[in-house]
């Protein structure tokens, strides 16, 4: 009886938790090793956010990373100067990549405040995940799942005590 009740509650929670699972946007390697994320709209977000808003965010992020990794005049200058100083200059100045990463953090924070938080979502900066994924999580359901688990286990422990082994 106790076990059945527990499993039933668990199944209900699993269903609601499928929306609370994090959604991961993986890297797109079709252009080589440059940092680029897939713009394919995940099905889990269909009811949560408009497709165009999501794609805009990912495309802007991709543009930022392309700008950071661009091989052009400025990067050559930086590279040659660094080579002449035996790369000790990296200890003193902020590289262009680091400057762009700061812009990206600012952009993600702004997107979270203006676009994603009103829809109950939160984007995590890819640099915090080793640039492997852009992770999106639901703000509200993750809190609800915690509280539900809490009460289920409290009920379980009290029932387990009452029924003899």
């Amino acid at each position: 009886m106790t076990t059945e009740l527990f499993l039933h509650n668990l199944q209900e929670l699993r269903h609601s938790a499928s929306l609370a699972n994090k959604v991961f946007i993986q890297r797109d390697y079709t252009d080589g090793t440059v940092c680029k994320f897939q713009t394919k709209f995940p099905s889990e977000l269909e009811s949560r956010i408009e497709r165009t808003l999501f794609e805009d965010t990912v495309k802007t992020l991709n543009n930022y990373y392309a700008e950071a990794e661009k091989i052009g005049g400025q990067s050559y200058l930086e590279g040659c100067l660094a080579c002449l100083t035996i790369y000790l200059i990296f200890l003193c100045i902020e590289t262009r990549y680091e400057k762009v990463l700061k812009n990206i953090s600012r952009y993600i924070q702004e997107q979270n405040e203006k676009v994603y938080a009103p829809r109950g979502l939160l984007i995590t900066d890819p640099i915090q995940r080793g640039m492997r994924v852009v992770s999106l999580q639901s703000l509200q359901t993750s809190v609800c799942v915690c509280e539900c688990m809490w009460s289920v286990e409290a009920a379980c422990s009290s029932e387990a005590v009452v029924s003899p082994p």
Partner: protein
Amino acid sequence: MKNHEYQQIDPQALVTPTPTPPPRPLPEHKPRRARRRWEVFPGKNRFCCDGRMIAARQSGVLPLTLGLILLTSGLFFIFDCPFLVKHLTSCIPAIGGVLFVFVIISLLQTSFTDPGILPRATPEEAADIEKQIDNPTGSSSSYRPPPRTKEVVINQQVVKLKYCFTCKIFRPPRTSHCSLCDNCVERFDHHCPWVGNCVGKRNYRFFYTFIISLSFLTAFIFGCVTTHLTLRSQGGNGLVFALQASPASALELVVCFFSVWSILGLSGFHTYLVATNLTTNEDIKGSWSGKSGNEDVGNPYSYNSIIKNCCSVLCGPMPPSLIDRRGFVPSDDSVQTSPVEIELPAAKNDINMVGRAVTSGRPLPRPPVITLQQPAISIQSHSTA
């Protein structure tokens, strides 16, 4: 049996025998020193200066490398330079000094810089990837590719991405798992025991600077010592007299003679790799040389221009370190207890305490949200591809 247990239940008597009283108000109340992430880093690495510097756990022969360079250069500056300055020019120690500084600094940078380590996947990411492997979208029913590989088309070339069981990620292109350091390293070149670290995306340019400047230094010292001995043996003195007058030069000569060939060879090899935008790993495995007989295989990462390849490898933007070494570990990660297992044994013995605890809303150990996903992870057990 149950009657026996119920008779034994006595709150006052049973509180004392239990070694750890169950109703702990908070799991970890005493203040713990906040730990930095490098202290809990899963790879086999060594950290210095509170996480500012990183090296492989096995330092390999780095002390030998440093020792040889310092010894040979030291002997050169002490024994050969005074004679050469007197008889030739004072530029010699200046040039030698510049080369020596280049060698030492680039060696230390190669050894103590993060080569491009990829941090391991979080449990949620690993679970998400497992789900995708089991339910591949859009795969045809007739042919299913072997599990744990993914194919990507880069520049009209098919590249296979392998799944790393240790790091629980699909390795990006050109990334390889170093078994000595137990890390996935981006643009993995090789693990160099002479510098005691992997050579990868972030420290390849330091490594290249090191071997080029070391070739110049070795050749320079070899040339200078030969000149020194030649000058001393002039005037009918002979080579033996010269060697007796300056025995340190003999040692330098031997060290430089044996090392200059290998270092020059290595420099030449890496210059070829830089010009073709290849890594040692790819060259050894013959990934793009078409050894399987397929003539269409070529390096998809090459820009097909030597200058552009060199510039992109050596003068490209410096990528950031992806492992957060100096950040702090969040304190709630340390509480990993399974709540149900703790509660039931205590509950069996003491009805009143737990019952009271539940009704009064005593905080039970907070279950991690991940527990719902754990059954999904344990089901998957594919054989390796």
